[in-house]
């Protein structure tokens, strides 16, 4: 792994017990000038995402879904009208080969299908999932993140990163525990 060679240490992680504490910690860290960090929580807390520097422009799931939906709808309509009008035209009592209203159900279903799959798959890809291994899993108590604990990790890639300073800083936030995260 390229990253772990360059940064043998992934970052430093602090553990908190409440949503309020993690929000305050993330905001304080941001105010202190740290930029490359992430918080880990058992359930979504919108403000924490914002506090660790996640901006609206980083979230392209909706756009992906929109593009997928448009392409899906276009594909569905093209498929139906090509099959009925070009590849296998059936003359039934002189009725039109391409009656567009009859193709709306298929167009609609294709739109919804591709839009939904784009949202789901796009979200996974943008999140870098599936990723069975990640350095944060090396923290022994990290398995409580999916139960009731909240973690803040300042990563080694941060320009202001300095092991001693960051450790002291995180300790000043009243965490339950501060741990070095092996890369």
């Amino acid at each position: 792994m390229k990253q772990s060679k360059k940064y043998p240490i992934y970052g430093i992680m602090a553990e908190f017990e409440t949503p309020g504490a993690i929000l305050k910690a993330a905001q304080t860290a941001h105010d202190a000038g740290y930029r490359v960090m992430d918080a880990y929580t058992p359930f979504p807390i919108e403000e924490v995402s914002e506090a660790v520097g996640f901006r609206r422009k980083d979230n392209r799931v909706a756009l992906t879904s929109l593009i997928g939906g448009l392409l899906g709808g276009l594909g569905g309509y093209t498929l139906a009208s090509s099959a009925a009008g070009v590849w296998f035209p059936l003359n039934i009592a002189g009725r039109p080969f391409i009656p567009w209203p009859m193709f709306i159900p298929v167009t609609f279903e294709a739109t919804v299908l591709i839009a939904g799959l784009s949202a789901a798959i796009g979200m996974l890809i943008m999140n870098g999932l599936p990723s069975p291994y990640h350095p944060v899993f090396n923290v022994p108590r990290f398995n409580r993140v999916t139960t009731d604990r909240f973690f803040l990790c300042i990563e080694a890639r941060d320009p202001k990163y300095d092991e001693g300073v960051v450790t002291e800083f995180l300790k000043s936030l009243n965490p339950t525990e501060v741990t070095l995260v092996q890369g």
Partner: protein
Amino acid sequence: MSAFQDDGPLVQAEPLAGYRDPSLTPIIGPTMTFRTITEKISDIVLEMDTPKWWFGTMLVGLAFTVGLLFAVTVLFFKGIGIWGNNQPVGWAWDITNFVWWIGIGHAGTFISAILFLVKQEWRNSINRFAEAMTIFAVMCAGMFPVLHLGRPWLAYWLFPLPNTMGVWPQFKSPLVWDVFAVSTYFTLSLTYWYLGMVPDLGTLRDRAKKTFQQKLYGFMSLGWRGSSKHWARYETAYLLLAGLCTPLVLSVHSVVSLDFSVGIVPGWHSTIFPPYFVAGAIFSGFALVLTLIIPARRLFGIKELITQRHIDNMGKVMLATGLIVGYSYVEEAFLGLVYPGNKYEHFLIMNRMFGPYAPFYWTLVLCNVITPQFLWWRKIRNNTIVLFILTIVINIGMWLERFEIIAVSLTRDYLPSSWGYFKPTIFDMMTFAGTLGFFLSAMLLFLRGMPMIPMYEEKMLLPASDPHGHAEEGIFLEETEEI
């Protein structure tokens, strides 16, 4: 209470939906914390010894599934002549079962998507359960049209695949729309269900002690680590899927109903069908959710997560949709009996009410119109035993309704010389009972191996989840003691 009055406005900033009106039972038990929610739900999967009743019920389910396999094997060798279908009744139990099962599935999507969009927080504890039901119900539904094809091994011809014969599906036909509607519905329901489960599978992975469990849930959780950046995208994707599933749930049964209303058979050819079918679908679906959830919450001891309030609310939805269904019956009868000019519709209604299948008609009126009226009473909605019986009666009624529309309409159409009578065979019965068994076994597997209640969504219902609440987990307990 008084100890917290100083920061009162903050603690009370966003009270839980259930607590806005103290006369209502809360949607989550007062003793629940992040930890107890997690333990309660994940222990059912990871720690609990499989109870005896589970094996017993599973055995019954599997026995019926074996019956299904047998019936289907015979069908593959002999063709659909083993069923009671014959001219003029070409669509009988098979399509009835298809429509009934698809309808059952609608409650799941209704609960998980529509109630999510309108922020009905009580749906959080029943949505996963109901979605699982949707998926298994659509699986059962999908079997029937395929088995009814005559040559089921050519089922892939339903899809628009380029082939050497140069033949394509007829895109002007509702039957092709149906293929698209049902397969889209199944794919998206499965995606929505699985996506919603990923964080909870992460929880199971982290709490699992046996290697097999760690590997299984580790694989399925896709390496979910609760990163707040992931959560932001995840929530967008979840919201979008809810938004997309909402028109989908309304469209699927509408398209199914077009299979009939585009045909010219009296009893099929009606513009009221799409809303009528959708209402009936949600009606029967909620009934089945209740049929399953009433015993499940007792057997798994999760009454604090699926409270009386949920039961009560589902009763109300059933009442509302039941009234729409009842209205549709009245409208059909009005068109046939009172509205002048259509003697075939008139004959159809007379045939339904007083013809050879009249007992079915009156049973279905009893089941679907009279029975839901009991739900006006809060006492009945809160009496789980009475409600349990009501839900079964309603689902029998809904099945009869589908049969009445599909098969009975076909027995007597325009030409008296081609009238007929439909009787099911043992294979009809085995196939239908078999899908019920398959459904039951699949639900039992789900209850045993998957988190049946979304843990992370439940945690978001606790006041302690509000970062501005200054609420330690304990406060919740004291605050709610009086309720």
